[in-house]
């Protein structure tokens, strides 16, 4: 039985490390902003033979463009990207002419001009649109689930966005308007994935509440694990194909999607769920009571389901701090490390009976012979 929630400390550390790397790279290197965001002219030149940056630079200098950004394609030295400030039509024509005369014959060329005003609009619109989309999703998830679920789901989105942007910062891949599309796709996939898991948690909360919060979340994840793996595999298979077989122009986009989708899948299980769990745990510990009463019917419903070792931790923790029956009347088997520690050395069997004495509900539990046998 997989005990993902128990190990959430490690997931937090991993996520923290990834986020740190991303942020550090952003602060140190920043992003390689394409002309879609800064304005300027971009020449995409395909020569009939490999060329060098110095050739290109000496062809550009007489036009006053010697300082321009020149990069050669990593895999094909006959493909060059030249990026200049905004220049007029005459100069652009002169650049192409200079290339043909001084560097080599062009098999094809592309010229992209973006003025700073359009670039600025793109940035503003992108942020505005994403911001409002977040708010919209927050409202819907709160309506269908609860506020905590909405916040943790969106937090997972931020996590994915920062890491993907960090990837662009580390690799210095040029940031174009397709980059915006990539980020949006990743966020869409990630939220979709997260909600599927939350939906199962919601269902388990309804029918297995008494098993304890830990059990609810852990089981939810375990139950959806196959689906989680399969969907991630099919999606990555599809995108990997684009990365490997698609052309040069989609390579960066596909790489961003691969990393982003993997990140989005990871965050649904290892970020959003544990965060929600911890937050919910804190709330329930504070309240010290369970939302739903423990009933015999509920226990019968729980039978026949796959039950895992419960986190008496949750129960014990509640008991230790509030003196109440850790609202987790559920299965109070020894859960292992964390549980034992939280119970402050309580014995493996979170003595349900003993704790039960603290509350009226204990009586009911006392009657459950089957429980005690555990």
């Amino acid at each position, binding site marked *: 039985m997989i005990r993902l929630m128990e190990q959430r400390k490690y997931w937090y550390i991993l996520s923290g490390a990834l986020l740190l790397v991303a942020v550090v790279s952003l602060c140190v290197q920043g992003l390689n902003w394409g002309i879609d965001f800064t304005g300027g002219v971009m020449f995409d030149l395909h020569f009939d033979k490999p060329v060098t940056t110095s050739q290109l630079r000496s062809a550009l200098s007489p036009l006053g463009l010697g300082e321009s950004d020149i990069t050669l394609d990593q895999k094909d030295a006959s493909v060059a990207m030249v990026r200049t400030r905004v220049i007029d039509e005459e100069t652009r024509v002169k650049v192409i002419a200079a290339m043909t005369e001084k560097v080599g014959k062009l098999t094809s060329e592309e010229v992209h001009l973006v003025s700073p005003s359009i670039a600025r609009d*793109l940035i503003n619109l992108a942020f505005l649109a994403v911001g409002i989309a977040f708010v919209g999703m927050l409202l*819907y998830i709160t309506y269908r689930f609860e506020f905590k679920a909405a916040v943790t789901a969106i937090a997972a989105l931020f996590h994915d966005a920062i890491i993907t942007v960090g990837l662009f910062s580390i690799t210095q891949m040029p940031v174009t308007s397709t980059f915006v599309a990539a980020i949006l796709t990743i966020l869409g*996939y990630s939220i979709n994935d997260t909600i599927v898991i939350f939906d199962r948690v919601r269902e388990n909360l309804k029918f297995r509440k008494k098993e304890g919060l830990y059990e609810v979340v852990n089981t939810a994840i375990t139950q959806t694990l196959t689906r989680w793996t399969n969907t991630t595999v099919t*999606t990555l298979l*599809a*995108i990997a194909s684009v990365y490997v077989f*698609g052309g040069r122009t989609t390579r960066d986009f596909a790489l961003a999607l691969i990393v982003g989708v993997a990140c989005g899948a990871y965050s649904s299980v290892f970020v959003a769920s544990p965060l929600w769990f911890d937050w919910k745990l804190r709330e329930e510990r504070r309240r010290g009571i369970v939302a739903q009463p423990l009933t015999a019917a509920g226990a019968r419903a729980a039978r026949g389901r796959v039950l895992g070792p419960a986190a008496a931790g949750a129960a014990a923790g509640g008991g230790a701090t509030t003196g109440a029956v850790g609202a987790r009347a559920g299965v109070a088997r020894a859960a292992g490390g964390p549980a034992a520690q939280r119970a402050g050395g309580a014995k493996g069997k979170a003595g349900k009976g003993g704790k039960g004495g603290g509350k009226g509900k204990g009586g009911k539990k006392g009657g459950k012979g089957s429980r005690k046998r555990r």
Partner: protein
Amino acid sequence: MQERSLAAFLAIVVLVAAVAYCFVGPTPFLGAPLMGRLNLGLDLKGGTHVVLEAQDEAGAPVTKDAMKQALSIIRFRVDSLGVAEPIIQQSGDRRIIVELAGIEDPEEAVKLLGRTAMLQFKDEAGNVIITGRDLQRAEAVLDRTNQAVVTLKLKPDAKKRFADATTANVGKPIMIYLDQDLVQAPTVEEGNIEEPMITGYEKLESAQNVAVLLNSGALPVPLKIVENRIISATLGQDSINKSKVAVIIGIAAVALFMLAFYRVPGLIAVFALLVYILILIGLLIGLKAALTLPGIAGIVLSVGMAVDANVIIFERIKEELRWGKTLRAAFDAGFRNAMRTIIDSNVTTLIGAAVLFYFGAGPIRGFAVTLSLGILTSMFTAVVLTRLLLNLLVRAGLIRSGRIFVKV
């Protein structure tokens, strides 16, 4: 009941196969394969993409009327370029997007579009004799010496004015301005000229461009080129070829995985996937949406995600079977519970897409459209179609036990 269900199932399969064929092969009632009707984006077919922005002038702010006028002037100019299927749209309050495929001299064409084209004839003293508004028609012709000239037919009331001006200015130059640039300053040789001429063009083509400009009329507001992309057709073709391979392999990989993991239900899921792709392409063709390179990658991604609904359903059915339900009960419960999951997760994503569509522009909006279409279509094919087919198979007796699921 058994035979009817089997027949219905087979009928659906045949229907889908027929529709699929219509996309890739010629048919008597549709003509060429439907795939040919798919509108390709500029990055795939090559061409020019220009965005013109109207600028406020002192005392002449950009108004809705001005934009309407500017739009029709631009249309006129684009038409004269003789490009097949140009795209001319207004974007926002003050931008016009023009997309032209296959132009020989794109930079020249763009210049043509953006020029204000304000014509003025002035005398030495600076008095305006005639302007573009007095022009009836401009024409580019070759004169007796085979030189390219632009003849200007003036409106009746302007003819007299011009004739008088030439008479009054014999021996003196008359200045011809186009957009405040001095184009020519010929000396008037004789008076009473009713049809002025602008001479000295190197190529007939240049003269023709000017004629088009003058005939289209002067733009009511100056247009600035804020975005200009010249995209190569050869690169586009290369991208198309590579994309075809990527798409086929990507879909094949997903299909193989589903078959391997889910066997017979997996086959149904792959079939539903085929229908999904057909519907998606059909929608794109119907909406005349342009397919761009990121769009292709997006579609491949959506294929990987479209199976998600099927995976959710199948896994749920497996669970219900494991909990001891009968095949029919497991199916029903599986679909029902899975629906709830699918709807919640998809609606959340759709909300995001809707917002992006409303607030976004250009590429962001296009992305929102494909994402929304993909989600809605996959909800239909994965839920409605798969359920229908599986039910038919069960009723036809071809799926008898839950072992078809749990065995995996």
